[in-house]
């Protein structure tokens, strides 16, 4: 009597993958061959143990705090309190302020035609209307969570503070074209900032 020499053949028998006639032959052979019978019994025990192995094992301790800690040092990691959006908003504020100053120095005086309190107050009213519209759109953006909105409003407050200082200076020197230009540049940048937030598809 010849025993199968192919290891895979035993496996196929154990998994019942052989054709019916070969399954029968193997069964009869195992009945007569102690070596094959022992081998098949051991193989069946191994297979049974394999099928009983759990597919999932959980570590004894929670690994998430360490993973989150390492990931939080990466720039794109956004914590639930809106950490990354805070960074982005702060960066935009910096650009806004820097951009306002840059425009002040780069734009020729002739681009601004009005002078006096009436001119800059009229401009302020125009900007206020546009700002209100954008803030309404910001509040109605479903993509933004409350935490992010709070951070963005906080940054707008910072911008408002800078603009308020310019206006305070204008009240002392209402005819100062440089201050007017600075105010205009700051307001333009503020509106660009608001527009960029409103337009972002995934600002949340």
């Amino acid at each position, binding site marked *: 009597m010849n025993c199968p020499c192919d290891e895979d053949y035993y496996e196929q028998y154990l998994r019942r993958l052989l054709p019916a006639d070969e399954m029968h032959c193997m069964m009869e052979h195992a009945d007569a061959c102690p070596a094959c019978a022992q081998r098949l019994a051991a193989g069946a025990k191994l297979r049974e*143990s394999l099928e009983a192995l759990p597919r999932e094992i959980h570590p004894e301790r929670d690994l998430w705090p360490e993973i989150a800690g390492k990931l939080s040092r990466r720039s794109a990691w956004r914590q639930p309190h809106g950490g990354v959006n805070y960074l982005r908003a702060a960066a935009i504020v910096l650009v806004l302020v820097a951009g306002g100053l840059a425009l002040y120095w780069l734009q020729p005086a002739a681009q601004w035609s009005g002078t006096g309190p009436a001119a800059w107050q009229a401009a302020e009213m125009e900007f206020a209307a546009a700002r209100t519209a954008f803030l309404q759109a910001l509040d109605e953006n479903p993509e933004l969570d409350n935490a992010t909105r709070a951070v963005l409003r906080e940054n707008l407050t910072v911008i408002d503070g800078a603009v308020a200082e310019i206006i305070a200076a204008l009240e002392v020197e209402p005819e100062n074209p440089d201050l007017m230009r600075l105010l205009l540049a700051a307001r333009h940048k503020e509106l660009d900032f608001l527009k960029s937030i409103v337009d972002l598809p995934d600002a949340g």
Partner: protein
Amino acid sequence: MLPNRPKSEPPAPPEAASVDRGDPAVRAEDDLWVKQAQRGDARAFERLYRRHLGRTYALCLRMMADRHQAEEAVQEVFIRTWEKLHTFRGESSFGTWLHRLTVNHTLMILRKRQRGQRLFAGVEDAALEDQAPPPRHPHHKLDLEWAIAQLPTGARTVFLLHEIEGYQHDEIAALLDIAPGTCKAQLHRARRLLREWLSQ
């Protein structure tokens, strides 16, 4: 005499390499969390982590055969997942993609652990021929998990990838940079050793 039968490889075990749970709701949820995580949402990534941790840790623990190294491997895998998440296109399920990443990463760790040696050194091959059961702590139950952990690294890797993770020989051979014949030989020897040890 048993009839001749063309040599062929048994099909992969039912729990194949894909870790798709087959539940559309689970996959849909994973897809949503992946999109959120790709936008930087930490909470969404944590949900993915918690859902797939068990499977990932099981693979790492069995491959590393060491709890501490498995914990480190899991952390590295999920950090790497975060870093590569932008490359995930949804062609497979997230679970399948994560699983492949885990296999590749653990193999890389094992290669580093071998300090440049191949996972299948000639001496290991010969050592498998007549290997007595390793001594065990009296309190260790002689169960399969323990027995697998005692296998030499290369044989254990082949056994796990084929018998538990469902890879075919040619896939394993490509991953380990060995011939398919070597892969089969390692699997057969691992099975023989495990049969012997479990029969003690």
